[in-house]
């Protein structure tokens, strides 16, 4: 007597046991899986299941899915499950598809207060580490200048070339354009008062005091700070830093110091170069589009820009350079060991570097005002 059937199977039974005849192809990708098929067989209420598979064609996981659901259901309902009629290969796979090893449970979620506490502790630890990094750089830097550091001169020169000369093209382009843009924007306002010639002093002061230092630092945070973090994070992942530590070679002197010294030394030089480029950009725009002669532009710049402003700019660049390099190295050394950690470290270093530079710049602006510079 037919009890139930579906695509590829038919169940016949006499009340004491049910024989399921399997026929045709069972291809998951093409035919899908018949939902609830196993449930319908079990619903017949037979106390024993057997199989007849003479007409079975090609089959894949679709058949195994059907059989394993049926077997698990039968096991739960204390129905005998006789697999003797199944092809040997299907029986082996069925044996393989038994409920498996328990998987470790994820750690329980932390209560809110604990999370705040943990956050506070990690913030404290991070502040300590950052302070140690700054202090260490100072001490080791002085030692290095006295020639008492294992830092290799070649490393320092490589870092200086990478953070200095190699950055010239992008520093040129950005500062030229910033100078030009300032001249354009200034011209629109100044022309209304017939004060075209003052565009030179505006560009000069803005570039020397703010923009050259700030823009160059932002470029270097993106370019060099990110690269430092990515490089150190890669070394971390390759266990290169562990290898240095295991030899007892001071990681700080070999990896951090040359980078910090190089960028701190190079950024002021790039700043001066950026000033020249910015002033030149403004010059091109002013002479080309405004009623300003080349001679009067230069004369006006010399009047407007004082030495103090260069000192302020240089001081800023020095601090920005140290900040960017320290942030890059710190983030790189603290990175995880996976490939994804390298990308995260680079992003983190760039963001922290840029935000840090802008915050520091604001602090400088306030101090400069208080000092009347």
């Amino acid at each position: 007597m037919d009890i139930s059937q579906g695509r590829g199977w038919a169940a016949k039974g006499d009340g004491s046991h049910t024989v399921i005849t399997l026929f045709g192809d069972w291809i998951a990708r093409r035919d899908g899986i018949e939902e609830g098929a196993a449930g319908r067989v079990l619903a017949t209420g037979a106390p024993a299941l057997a199989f007849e598979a003479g007409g079975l064609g090609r089959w894949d996981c679709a058949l195994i899915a059907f059989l394993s659901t049926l077997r698990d259901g039968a096991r739960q309902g204390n129905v005998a499950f006789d697999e003797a009629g199944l092809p040997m290969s299907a029986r082996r796979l069925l044996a393989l598809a038994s409920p498996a090893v328990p998987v470790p449970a994820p750690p329980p979620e932390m209560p809110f207060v604990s999370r705040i506490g943990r956050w506070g502790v990690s913030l404290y630890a991070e502040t300590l580490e950052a302070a140690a990094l700054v202090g260490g750089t100072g001490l080791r830097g002085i030692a290095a200048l006295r020639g008492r550091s294992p830092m290799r001169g070649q490393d320092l020169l490589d870092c200086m070339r990478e953070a200095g000369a190699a950055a010239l093209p992008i520093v040129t382009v950005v500062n030229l354009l910033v100078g030009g843009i300032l001249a354009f924007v200034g011209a629109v306002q100044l022309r209304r008062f017939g004060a075209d010639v003052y565009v030179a002093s505006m560009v000069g002061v803005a570039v020397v005091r703010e923009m050259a230092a700030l823009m160059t630092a932002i470029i270097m945070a993106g370019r060099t700070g990110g690269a430092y973090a990515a490089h150190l994070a890669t070394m971390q992942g390759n266990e290169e830093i562990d290898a240095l530590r295991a030899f007892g070679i001071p990681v700080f002197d070999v990896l951090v110091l040359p980078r910090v010294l190089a960028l701190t030394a190079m950024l002021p030089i790039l700043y001066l170069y950026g000033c020249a480029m910015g002033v030149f950009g403004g010059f091109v725009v002013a002479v080309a589009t405004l009623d300003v002669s080349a001679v009067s532009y230069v004369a006006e710049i010399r009047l407007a820009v004082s030495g103090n402003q260069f000192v302020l700019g240089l001081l800023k660049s020095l601090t920005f350079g140290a900040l960017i390099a320290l942030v890059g190295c710190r983030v790189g050394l603290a990175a995880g060991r996976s490939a994804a950690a390298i990308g995260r470290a680079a992003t983190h270093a760039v963001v922290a570097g840029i935000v840090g530079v802008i915050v520091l710049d604001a602090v400088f602006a306030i101090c400069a005002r208080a000092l009347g510079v």
Partner: protein
Amino acid sequence: MPSRWKLQVEGLAVGFGDVVVLRDVSFRIAAGSIFAVMGGSGCGKSTVLKAMIGLLRPSAGVIHVGGEDYWAADDARRAEIGRGFGILFQNGALWNSMSVADNVALPLRMLTRLDEAAIAALVRVKLSLVGLGGAGGTMPAELSGGMRKRAALARALALDPDILFFDEPTSGLDPVTAKRLDDLILELRDGFGTTVVMVSHDLPSLFGICDDGIFLDAGSRTAIASGAPAMLRDQCQQPFVRAFMTRERPPDDGEASP
């Protein structure tokens, strides 16, 4: 009945510019067999694999998959043939941003028209086949090395492939875990009748499960021996192959130390 050869490679050559990576490699893989691509480091084992799975176009030679010229087919047809491949990459190559179950489900969602219920049922059975029945919800990062390999194997099985490719399946696994994986590969081959191609230099694994294979040589950039690994160990006339299969130094070993 189709030909008993599932994969036939004739005169395969791969090169980049003037650099020859492989030359004139030919072999045939019987349907339902476990075939090993063997050889020392840098001999081009992985290159052969990449040419077979469509990641690297050969500079010469023909690869027939089930009688069809794989590289002569257009991109769409090649992708269609490729759906019959399941590939287990060396480090698993699981998509880390997705749960294990989603890793297995993604090919089914993207490449079939099955509904979610059917996909869920298939994912469940595939994970239970590799012994990860309860692990569908876990993220790849939470799994051990052996479990990652199993999860990747479940993903390779997602579309019920005709041919399974393994790139160094047992590398980085301890001997017991490696043996378990070997047994699993055997069980799956016996159950589904899948053809298996594995790139490996793990000797116990090669002797344990492989029916046939070729041996590539780093110097001549081509195959210098073929046959079942155990046969190569016992009968091969090539001193380097014998040395490799018995983990000895070859008689004319010029290198003072590795």
